[in-house]
Protein backbone atom coordinates (compact mmCIF):
# COMPACT_ATOMS: atom_id res chain seq x y z
CA UNK A 1 0.00 0.00 0.00
CA UNK A 2 1.49 3.38 -0.91
CA UNK A 3 2.08 5.56 2.09
CA UNK A 4 3.41 9.02 2.76
CA UNK A 5 5.71 9.25 -0.23
CA UNK A 6 3.15 11.24 -2.16
CA UNK A 7 2.61 13.51 0.81
CA UNK A 8 6.33 14.00 1.21
CA UNK A 9 6.61 14.81 -2.47
CA UNK A 10 3.84 17.37 -2.16
CA UNK A 11 4.87 18.96 1.10
CA UNK A 12 8.61 18.58 1.07
CA UNK A 13 10.95 17.86 3.95
CA UNK A 14 9.90 17.24 7.52
CA UNK A 15 10.23 20.85 8.58
CA UNK A 16 7.70 22.02 6.05
CA UNK A 17 5.01 19.57 7.11
CA UNK A 18 5.35 20.34 10.80
CA UNK A 19 2.19 22.45 10.77
CA UNK A 20 0.11 19.64 9.24
CA UNK A 21 -0.20 17.73 12.48
CA UNK A 22 -2.45 14.71 12.49
CA UNK A 23 -2.62 14.64 16.30
CA UNK A 24 -5.05 17.27 17.45
CA UNK A 25 -6.87 18.67 20.46
CA UNK A 26 -10.58 17.77 20.55
CA UNK A 27 -11.83 19.18 23.84
CA UNK A 28 -10.69 20.01 27.34
CA UNK A 29 -11.34 21.78 30.59
CA UNK A 30 -9.48 23.62 33.32
CA UNK A 31 -10.87 22.83 36.76
CA UNK A 32 -11.79 25.65 39.14
CA UNK A 33 -11.69 23.59 42.34
CA UNK A 34 -15.47 23.25 42.70
CA UNK A 35 -16.15 20.15 40.57
CA UNK A 36 -15.04 16.53 40.85
CA UNK A 37 -15.96 15.26 37.42
CA UNK A 38 -15.82 16.03 33.75
CA UNK A 39 -17.41 14.20 30.83
CA UNK A 40 -16.31 14.24 27.23
CA UNK A 41 -19.53 13.52 25.35
CA UNK A 42 -20.45 13.22 21.67
CA UNK A 43 -16.87 12.20 20.93
CA UNK A 44 -16.31 12.41 17.16
CA UNK A 45 -16.01 9.03 15.47
CA UNK A 46 -13.58 10.35 12.89
CA UNK A 47 -10.27 9.61 14.62
CA UNK A 48 -8.13 6.49 14.57
CA UNK A 49 -7.29 6.70 18.29
CA UNK A 50 -7.93 8.88 21.34
CA UNK A 51 -5.63 10.13 24.06
CA UNK A 52 -6.64 11.76 27.35
CA UNK A 53 -4.06 13.79 29.23
CA UNK A 54 -4.88 14.77 32.82
CA UNK A 55 -2.72 17.04 34.92
CA UNK A 56 -4.31 17.02 38.37
CA UNK A 57 -3.24 18.76 41.52
CA UNK A 58 -4.91 17.46 44.66
CA UNK A 59 -6.66 19.63 47.18
CA UNK A 60 -7.64 17.95 50.48
CA UNK A 61 -7.31 15.04 51.18
CA UNK A 62 -6.32 13.59 47.79
CA UNK A 63 -7.75 12.87 44.41
CA UNK A 64 -8.31 9.37 43.00
CA UNK A 65 -9.20 9.46 39.32
CA UNK A 66 -11.41 6.90 37.61
CA UNK A 67 -12.77 6.74 34.08
CA UNK A 68 -16.16 5.49 32.98
CA UNK A 69 -17.14 4.73 29.38
CA UNK A 70 -20.51 5.54 27.78
CA UNK A 71 -22.02 6.01 31.25
CA UNK A 72 -21.71 2.26 31.93
CA UNK A 73 -21.75 1.47 35.65
CA UNK A 74 -21.66 -2.34 35.45
CA UNK A 75 -18.74 -4.51 36.48
CA UNK A 76 -17.41 -4.58 32.93
CA UNK A 77 -14.02 -2.90 33.15
CA UNK A 78 -11.37 -5.60 32.91
CA UNK A 79 -7.77 -4.63 33.48
CA UNK A 80 -4.34 -5.54 34.70
CA UNK A 81 -3.01 -3.06 37.22
CA UNK A 82 0.69 -2.51 37.84
CA UNK A 83 1.85 0.02 40.36
CA UNK A 84 4.63 0.96 42.68
CA UNK A 85 3.92 2.80 45.91
CA UNK A 86 6.92 3.97 47.88
CA UNK A 87 9.06 1.30 46.25
CA UNK A 88 6.73 -1.70 46.62
CA UNK A 89 5.62 -3.16 43.30
CA UNK A 90 2.24 -4.78 42.75
CA UNK A 91 0.53 -6.32 39.72
CA UNK A 92 -2.75 -8.17 39.33
CA UNK A 93 -6.00 -8.55 37.40
CA UNK A 94 -9.07 -6.50 38.32
CA UNK A 95 -12.76 -6.34 37.34
CA UNK A 96 -14.20 -2.96 38.27
CA UNK A 97 -17.10 -0.61 37.59
CA UNK A 98 -14.69 1.86 35.95
CA UNK A 99 -11.05 2.05 34.93
CA UNK A 100 -8.77 3.07 37.76
CA UNK A 101 -6.40 5.88 36.87
CA UNK A 102 -3.84 7.59 39.02
CA UNK A 103 -3.92 9.56 42.21
CA UNK A 104 -2.26 12.47 43.89
CA UNK A 105 -1.64 11.02 47.36
CA UNK A 106 -1.02 14.25 49.22
CA UNK A 107 -2.80 17.58 49.12
CA UNK A 108 -0.90 20.11 47.11
CA UNK A 109 0.91 17.52 44.98
CA UNK A 110 0.05 16.49 41.45
CA UNK A 111 -0.09 13.59 39.11
CA UNK A 112 0.15 13.38 35.35
CA UNK A 113 -1.89 10.81 33.57
CA UNK A 114 -2.25 9.56 29.99
CA UNK A 115 -4.99 7.31 28.70
CA UNK A 116 -5.01 5.74 25.21
CA UNK A 117 -7.97 4.27 23.36
CA UNK A 118 -7.30 2.53 20.07
CA UNK A 119 -10.14 1.02 18.05
CA UNK A 120 -12.70 3.14 19.92
CA UNK A 121 -14.99 3.36 16.86
CA UNK A 122 -15.09 -0.41 16.35
CA UNK A 123 -18.62 -1.80 16.77
CA UNK A 124 -17.88 -5.52 16.57
CA UNK A 125 -15.19 -5.92 19.26
CA UNK A 126 -14.47 -4.66 22.78
CA UNK A 127 -12.47 -1.45 23.01
CA UNK A 128 -9.03 -1.89 24.60
CA UNK A 129 -7.18 0.76 26.60
CA UNK A 130 -3.79 1.69 28.06
CA UNK A 131 -3.24 4.15 30.85
CA UNK A 132 -0.24 5.34 32.79
CA UNK A 133 0.05 7.82 35.63
CA UNK A 134 2.75 9.05 37.91
CA UNK A 135 2.68 11.05 41.11
CA UNK A 136 5.37 12.35 43.37
CA UNK A 137 5.36 13.66 46.87
CA UNK A 138 7.59 13.52 49.88
CA UNK A 139 6.24 10.29 51.38
CA UNK A 140 4.37 8.27 48.80
CA UNK A 141 5.99 8.17 45.40
CA UNK A 142 3.73 6.25 43.08
CA UNK A 143 3.29 5.18 39.52
CA UNK A 144 0.24 3.44 38.20
CA UNK A 145 -0.27 1.64 34.90
CA UNK A 146 -3.18 -0.42 33.75
CA UNK A 147 -4.15 -2.12 30.52
CA UNK A 148 -7.39 -3.84 29.69
CA UNK A 149 -10.68 -3.40 27.91
CA UNK A 150 -14.28 -2.41 28.30
CA UNK A 151 -16.45 -5.52 28.02
CA UNK A 152 -19.96 -4.08 27.94
CA UNK A 153 -21.13 -4.80 24.43
CA UNK A 154 -19.34 -3.60 21.37
CA UNK A 155 -20.77 -0.11 20.93
CA UNK A 156 -18.36 2.59 19.88
CA UNK A 157 -17.04 4.83 22.64
CA UNK A 158 -18.93 8.12 22.49
CA UNK A 159 -18.42 9.46 26.01
CA UNK A 160 -15.71 9.29 28.66
CA UNK A 161 -16.24 10.52 32.21
CA UNK A 162 -13.34 11.24 34.54
CA UNK A 163 -14.40 11.35 38.18
CA UNK A 164 -13.23 11.00 41.76
CA UNK A 165 -14.25 8.54 44.46
CA UNK A 166 -12.56 10.16 47.46
CA UNK A 167 -14.82 13.18 47.84
CA UNK A 168 -12.17 15.54 46.61
CA UNK A 169 -12.01 17.90 43.65
CA UNK A 170 -9.04 18.60 41.41
CA UNK A 171 -7.50 21.84 42.54
CA UNK A 172 -8.01 24.99 40.51
CA UNK A 173 -5.73 24.97 37.50
CA UNK A 174 -5.85 21.21 36.96
CA UNK A 175 -6.34 20.44 33.27
CA UNK A 176 -7.98 17.60 31.38
CA UNK A 177 -7.75 17.30 27.61
CA UNK A 178 -8.89 14.91 24.91
CA UNK A 179 -6.81 14.49 21.76
CA UNK A 180 -7.30 12.49 18.58
CA UNK A 181 -4.96 10.81 16.12
CA UNK A 182 -6.32 11.13 12.60
CA UNK A 183 -5.59 10.39 8.99
CA UNK A 184 -4.04 13.11 6.91
Amino acid at each position, binding site marked *: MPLGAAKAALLGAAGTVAEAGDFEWIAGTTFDGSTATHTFSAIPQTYNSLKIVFYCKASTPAFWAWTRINGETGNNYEMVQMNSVSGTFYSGELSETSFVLGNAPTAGYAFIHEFEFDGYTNTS*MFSPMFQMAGSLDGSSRQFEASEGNYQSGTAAITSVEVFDTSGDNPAAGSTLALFGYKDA
Partner: protein
Amino acid sequence: MMEHIGSVSGTGSSAVMTLTGVPDTYETLLLKGVAHSTNAASVEAYMRFNSDTDYVYDNLRGGRKDGATFTGNGANTSMNHFAYIPGTNQTSVLAQIEMNIAGYRAAADQPGVCGFFSQSNFMYDSSDDAQMIWTGWYDGSNVDITIISFHMSSGNWGTSSKFDLYGRTGP
Protein backbone atom coordinates in the same frame (compact mmCIF):
# COMPACT_ATOMS: atom_id res chain seq x y z
CA MET B 1 4.27 17.49 15.14
CA MET B 2 2.71 14.19 14.22
CA GLU B 3 1.83 13.21 10.69
CA HIS B 4 -0.21 10.22 9.58
CA ILE B 5 1.82 8.17 7.09
CA GLY B 6 -0.53 5.30 6.28
CA SER B 7 -2.44 2.32 7.54
CA VAL B 8 -2.98 -1.38 6.95
CA SER B 9 -6.02 -3.49 7.83
CA GLY B 10 -6.64 -7.19 8.23
CA THR B 11 -8.70 -9.03 5.63
CA GLY B 12 -9.23 -12.29 7.49
CA SER B 13 -7.45 -14.18 4.71
CA SER B 14 -3.83 -13.04 5.00
CA ALA B 15 -1.21 -13.73 7.66
CA VAL B 16 0.84 -10.70 6.60
CA MET B 17 0.06 -6.98 6.58
CA THR B 18 2.66 -4.71 5.01
CA LEU B 19 3.36 -0.99 5.15
CA THR B 20 5.52 0.12 2.23
CA GLY B 21 7.04 3.38 1.08
CA VAL B 22 7.80 4.73 4.56
CA PRO B 23 9.39 8.15 3.90
CA ASP B 24 12.87 8.91 5.27
CA THR B 25 11.79 12.35 6.44
CA TYR B 26 10.78 11.70 10.05
CA GLU B 27 12.71 11.74 13.30
CA THR B 28 10.86 8.77 14.80
CA LEU B 29 7.83 6.65 13.96
CA LEU B 30 4.76 5.83 16.03
CA LEU B 31 2.68 2.73 15.32
CA LYS B 32 -0.76 2.46 16.93
CA GLY B 33 -3.50 -0.04 16.40
CA VAL B 34 -5.64 -3.00 17.31
CA ALA B 35 -5.48 -6.60 16.15
CA HIS B 36 -6.95 -10.06 16.41
CA SER B 37 -6.34 -13.42 14.76
CA THR B 38 -8.58 -15.89 12.94
CA ASN B 39 -6.76 -18.66 14.84
CA ALA B 40 -8.71 -20.25 17.72
CA ALA B 41 -6.04 -19.75 20.39
CA SER B 42 -4.13 -16.52 20.94
CA VAL B 43 -1.00 -16.16 18.80
CA GLU B 44 2.30 -14.32 18.65
CA ALA B 45 2.73 -11.26 16.44
CA TYR B 46 6.01 -10.40 14.72
CA MET B 47 7.36 -7.62 12.55
CA ARG B 48 10.07 -7.51 9.93
CA PHE B 49 11.93 -4.57 8.39
CA ASN B 50 12.68 -4.24 4.65
CA SER B 51 11.67 -7.91 4.14
CA ASP B 52 14.98 -8.93 5.77
CA THR B 53 14.75 -12.61 6.81
CA ASP B 54 18.23 -12.81 8.33
CA TYR B 55 18.58 -13.65 12.03
CA VAL B 56 19.17 -10.08 13.10
CA TYR B 57 16.26 -9.26 15.40
CA ASP B 58 16.33 -9.15 19.22
CA ASN B 59 13.76 -8.29 21.85
CA LEU B 60 13.02 -8.20 25.58
CA ARG B 61 9.53 -8.29 27.06
CA GLY B 62 7.90 -8.31 30.46
CA GLY B 63 4.64 -7.76 32.29
CA ARG B 64 1.77 -10.14 32.92
CA LYS B 65 0.42 -13.06 30.90
CA ASP B 66 -2.42 -15.46 31.75
CA GLY B 67 -2.75 -14.16 35.28
CA ALA B 68 0.90 -14.25 36.29
CA THR B 69 4.02 -12.15 35.95
CA PHE B 70 5.93 -12.93 32.78
CA THR B 71 9.28 -12.13 31.18
CA GLY B 72 10.92 -13.31 27.98
CA ASN B 73 13.38 -12.49 25.26
CA GLY B 74 14.29 -13.38 21.71
CA ALA B 75 17.87 -13.22 20.44
CA ASN B 76 19.04 -13.46 16.82
CA THR B 77 15.62 -14.25 15.41
CA SER B 78 14.36 -13.77 11.85
CA MET B 79 11.69 -11.24 12.86
CA ASN B 80 10.82 -9.41 16.01
CA HIS B 81 8.12 -10.54 18.40
CA PHE B 82 6.13 -7.49 19.52
CA ALA B 83 2.72 -8.61 20.84
CA TYR B 84 0.37 -11.43 21.78
CA ILE B 85 -2.83 -11.37 19.74
CA PRO B 86 -6.21 -12.83 20.80
CA GLY B 87 -7.89 -15.47 18.66
CA THR B 88 -11.50 -16.53 18.23
CA ASN B 89 -11.45 -18.29 21.62
CA GLN B 90 -11.11 -14.81 23.14
CA THR B 91 -14.47 -13.66 21.80
CA SER B 92 -14.68 -9.98 20.74
CA VAL B 93 -11.26 -9.18 22.21
CA LEU B 94 -8.76 -6.92 20.45
CA ALA B 95 -5.10 -6.52 21.22
CA GLN B 96 -3.88 -2.95 21.49
CA ILE B 97 -0.39 -1.97 20.37
CA GLU B 98 1.52 1.28 20.65
CA MET B 99 5.11 1.26 19.40
CA ASN B 100 7.79 3.90 19.10
CA ILE B 101 10.42 3.18 16.43
CA ALA B 102 13.68 5.13 16.46
CA GLY B 103 16.78 5.15 14.27
CA TYR B 104 14.85 3.92 11.24
CA ARG B 105 16.90 5.99 8.81
CA ALA B 106 20.32 4.87 7.53
CA ALA B 107 23.25 5.00 9.95
CA ALA B 108 24.85 7.74 7.90
CA ASP B 109 21.81 9.88 8.72
CA GLN B 110 20.70 8.58 12.15
CA PRO B 111 23.40 6.92 14.24
CA GLY B 112 22.83 3.48 15.74
CA VAL B 113 20.65 0.57 14.76
CA CYS B 114 16.90 0.74 14.47
CA GLY B 115 15.14 0.01 17.76
CA PHE B 116 11.69 0.09 19.24
CA PHE B 117 9.86 0.10 22.53
CA SER B 118 6.21 -0.66 22.83
CA GLN B 119 3.21 -1.66 24.91
CA SER B 120 0.79 -4.42 24.01
CA ASN B 121 -2.39 -5.48 25.73
CA PHE B 122 -5.21 -7.95 25.39
CA MET B 123 -7.65 -8.87 28.12
CA TYR B 124 -10.12 -11.76 27.97
CA ASP B 125 -10.35 -12.70 31.63
CA SER B 126 -8.14 -12.86 34.68
CA SER B 127 -6.38 -16.04 33.51
CA ASP B 128 -6.30 -15.40 29.76
CA ASP B 129 -4.61 -12.11 28.99
CA ALA B 130 -1.29 -10.45 28.11
CA GLN B 131 -0.09 -6.98 29.11
CA MET B 132 3.52 -6.22 28.37
CA ILE B 133 6.24 -3.70 27.79
CA TRP B 134 8.65 -4.53 24.97
CA THR B 135 11.92 -3.28 23.59
CA GLY B 136 13.89 -4.60 20.64
CA TRP B 137 16.28 -3.79 17.86
CA TYR B 138 17.37 -4.73 14.35
CA ASP B 139 21.00 -5.49 13.52
CA GLY B 140 20.55 -5.88 9.77
CA SER B 141 21.67 -3.68 6.91
CA ASN B 142 21.80 -0.16 8.20
CA VAL B 143 19.85 1.47 5.42
CA ASP B 144 16.58 3.42 5.48
CA ILE B 145 13.70 1.26 6.61
CA THR B 146 10.95 1.68 4.04
CA ILE B 147 8.97 -1.52 4.56
CA ILE B 148 7.46 -2.84 7.80
CA SER B 149 5.57 -6.13 7.62
CA PHE B 150 3.47 -7.73 10.36
CA HIS B 151 3.20 -11.50 10.74
CA MET B 152 1.55 -13.95 13.11
CA SER B 153 2.45 -17.43 14.28
CA SER B 154 -0.89 -19.02 13.25
CA GLY B 155 -4.03 -17.85 11.49
CA ASN B 156 -4.65 -14.61 9.67
CA TRP B 157 -5.11 -10.99 10.69
CA GLY B 158 -8.80 -10.57 11.54
CA THR B 159 -10.96 -8.00 9.80
CA SER B 160 -11.02 -5.61 12.77
CA SER B 161 -7.20 -5.43 12.78
CA LYS B 162 -5.81 -2.04 11.83
CA PHE B 163 -2.43 -0.41 12.31
CA ASP B 164 -1.78 3.29 11.74
CA LEU B 165 1.74 4.59 11.24
CA TYR B 166 2.64 8.17 12.16
CA GLY B 167 5.84 10.13 11.75
CA ARG B 168 7.22 12.76 14.11
CA THR B 169 8.73 15.74 12.40
CA GLY B 170 11.74 17.55 13.70
CA PRO B 171 12.08 21.19 14.66
